[in-house]
């Protein structure tokens, strides 16, 4: 088959000494950039873009894609060890990765993350290899109503994310949605909710700002208050034997989440506008919903680590697809890669596969190699990261604080964001005190900026008729499922009340 001979050529190209070297450097650099709170693949790729001017385009994109990949692996590291998401794509990893680390199982969490990432990336690459043109067509059939329906579905899975207290979960979602509307409104072209006329709010409230505030500062204050500074991460040790045992346990307990994340993440990643962050969050929600033991989620379930980690790698490969075939970035990082391709004199778009097949297949080939390199390098570094956890909390806490502040500043270079991080951190602490779930608010601020414009675009298209979400072949079924899921807790409540009333 033609696909396989092209692929073989591509892998051969990726294995050329210069490309292999770039892959190894890229994955390692990406791993550390991803592990640094606040700095994600976007920053890494943007910073290193000019360097790629020195090598041929096919090597340059392989290098940048390797950074992208490495960062997806690296994001999990600080999520697990510090409780701060290393990148926005790794927020969902903190939900279960952090509890595992606090139980002294950091190595299990990290091994699960690495293996799930590997499977996710590989599944996505295979799907990419086999179905690229078909998937590009599918991505095009997703207009505003379809994307909104998908976001509705994501919100529906969140209702199950917050534990049993549905009203507090809904409050938390709404709070996140309000924060998401701050800033400039694309539809009307007017600024909205510029609080106290502070100019920094014109830019909106960045997701990473909220995430670092909530998980970096808020979590740290919470931990200090709960434990009076005597945090026990129960002496995490790392041996070769332990690594194998952890791998076995990760495979046994995390395969389901890995599978869900691999496929769902890829699918969401392929859709332009979505990207790896919503992909990983949705996978976490779906994995929890489908799990037979959902009560374990949030308390250290390996599935809860595997699902988002498989998804963010899978989605990052998926988001390359609309970039290459349509010239449309599926995520902020691919937007910069796209700019890079223009610099190298390539025109991304429907003709790229035909006109530049060596370039495209070299990149696809490099996905396979990068993935393998990333998982090996990652596993090799895990002892180092676990060792960090053995530091006394009196040293670790200030370190987390410094990393949060530096990471928050590095992302936007704005003092405004730093103050917001501190305010969100304190706010998160008090919300937690009153038992409000925080994850739904963080998720809402990611999906809000996608859901709101697509809702309004759809209603503009239909002149205000909401039937547009029901009578389109793809949007219709998704909307119906989403509404069913949202109403499910209400049904359960009714059924529980009835027997009680009968008695």
């Amino acid at each position, binding site marked *: 088959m033609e696909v396989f001979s092209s692929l073989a050529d591509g892998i051969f190209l990726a294995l050329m000494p210069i490309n292999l070297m770039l892959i190894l450097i890229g994955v390692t650099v990406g791993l550390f950039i991803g592990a640094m709170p606040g700095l994600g693949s*976007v920053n890494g790729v*943007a910073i290193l*873009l*000019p*360097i790629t*001017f*020195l090598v041929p385009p096919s090597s340059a994109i392989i290098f940048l894609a390797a950074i992208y990949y490495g960062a997806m692996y690296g994001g999990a590291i600080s999520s697990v060890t510090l409780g701060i998401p290393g990148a926005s794509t790794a927020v969902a990893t903190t939900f279960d990765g952090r509890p595992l680390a606090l139980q002294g199982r950091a190595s299990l969490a990290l091994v699960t993350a690495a293996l799930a990432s590997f499977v996710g990336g590989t599944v996505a690459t295979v799907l990419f290899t086999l179905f690229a043109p078909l998937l590009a067509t599918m*991505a*095009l*059939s*997703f*207009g*505003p109503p379809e994307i909104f329906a998908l976001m509705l579905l994501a919100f529906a899975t969140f209702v199950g994310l917050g534990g049993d207290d549905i009203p507090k979960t809904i409050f938390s979602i709404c709070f996140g949605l309000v924060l998401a509307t701050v*800033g*400039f409104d*694309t*539809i*009307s*072209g007017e*600024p909205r909710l510029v609080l106290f006329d502070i*100019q920094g709010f*014109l*830019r*909106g409230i960045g997701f990473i700002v909220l995430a670092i505030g909530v998980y970096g500062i808020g979590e740290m204050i919470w931990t200090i208050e709960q434990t009076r500074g005597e945090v026990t991460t129960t002496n995490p040790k790392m041996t070769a034997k332990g690594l194998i045992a952890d791998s076995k346990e990760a495979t046994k307990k995390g395969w389901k989440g890995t599978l869900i994340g691999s496929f769902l993440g890829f699918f969401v990643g392929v859709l*332009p*506008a979505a990207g790896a962050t919503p992909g990983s969050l949705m996978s976490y929600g779906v994995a929890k919903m489908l799990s037979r033991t959902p009560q374990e989620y949030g308390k250290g379930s390996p599935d809860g680590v595997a699902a988002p980690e498989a998804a963010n790698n899978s989605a990052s490969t998926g988001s390359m697809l*609309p970039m290459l075939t*349509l*010239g*449309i*970035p599926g995520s*902020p990082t*691919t*937007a*910069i890669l*796209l*700019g*890079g391709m*223009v*610099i190298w*004199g390539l*025109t*991304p*778009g*429907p*003709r*790229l596969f035909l006109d530049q097949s060596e370039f495209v297949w070299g990149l696809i080939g490099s996905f396979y190699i990068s993935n393998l390199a990333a998982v090996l390098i990652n596993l090799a570094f895990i002892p180092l990261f676990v060792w960090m956890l053995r530091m006394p909390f009196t040293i670790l806490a200030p370190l987390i604080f410094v990393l949060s502040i530096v990471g928050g500043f590095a992302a*936007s*270079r704005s003092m405004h964001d730093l103050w917001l991080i501190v305010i969100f951190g304190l706010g998160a602490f008090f919300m937690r005190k009153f038992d409000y779930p925080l994850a739904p608010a963080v998720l809402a601020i990611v999906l809000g900026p996608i859901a709101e*414009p697509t809702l309004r*675009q759809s209603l*503009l*298209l239909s*002149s205000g008729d909401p039937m547009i979400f029901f009578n389109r072949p793809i949007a219709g079924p998704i909307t119906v499922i989403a509404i069913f899921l949202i109403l499910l807790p209400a049904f359960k409540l009714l059924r529980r009340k009835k027997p009680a009333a009968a008695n």
Partner: protein
Amino acid sequence: MKLSKRLFLGLAVGGTLATLPISALAQEWQPTRPIDFTIMAGPGGGADQIARFVQSVVEANDMTNRPLIPTNRGGGSGAEALLHLNDARDPDHTLMVTLNSFYTTPIRQEALGIDIETFTPITMMGVDPFVLWVHKDSGITDFDGFLAKVREMDGEYVMGGTGAGQEDSIVIAYMAGVYDLDIKYIPYDGGGAVAKDLAGQQIMATVNNPAEAKGFYEAGDFIPLLAFSDTRMDAYPDVPTIKELGHDFSYYNQRAIVGAPGMSDEAAAYYRDIFGQVYASDAWQDYLVSESLSPLPMDEAETRAYWATQVANHRQLLSEIDG
């Protein structure tokens, strides 16, 4: 209404020669810290591509002794970037890559208190024309067919763009005005998203820069119907301009590098020399051709005069749109 860019087309060579004598003077001032290279738009758009292209040319030829640090400040339709420059603590190390929100945002958001005439002109890298596109499956092959279709749909014809008051909405509003068209306009948050939804036929037509539609055009998916440039574009010789149809209108997106207000003359001269070299480089000249940008070199005084006419023109256009 005259929005014509000045008749500098074809004078690219003259423009580059004019920047040469400054080189001697520029030796006196050198940047002493990394240069803030603010981009007035988010990652991936036209302005962002240009900024990173320029940065890569500067890096590859080692033109500056301190690096350019590109930062996207696209918030508030460029308001964030404008405020950042306006309040720059170190104007000698603060530059911005602009698009036309440089003109429109201060007009639409007067509360910002931005007067762009205080900004320092550095280099006009080129101007980006606009073209009207439809999907090949629409059955429309020329502008008359487009007009007939829009009238037949009677208010249900859907076009996408980057939002009220943005460049393409100004063009669409002008076109709808002179041809008395009733168009449903759907705002998106970037030119890329607009092109994608035209390719998927979620919307029926767009007004886009050629760079954003090029891939689909080359694949045969998009058909250009009308150009809003002064003369026919080299890349699309069969596409008529709206001027040929008897309407004295043209519209370009400015791709310029601008310094913060209060930049010293020495620093401005230094940057004009650097970006003049970038402009004259083969890499940039090839980019102008491949992305269908028009060259529009001008010196400081000419740029200031150009800004004044652009502000006046945009004020009038926006008042017509907003009513």
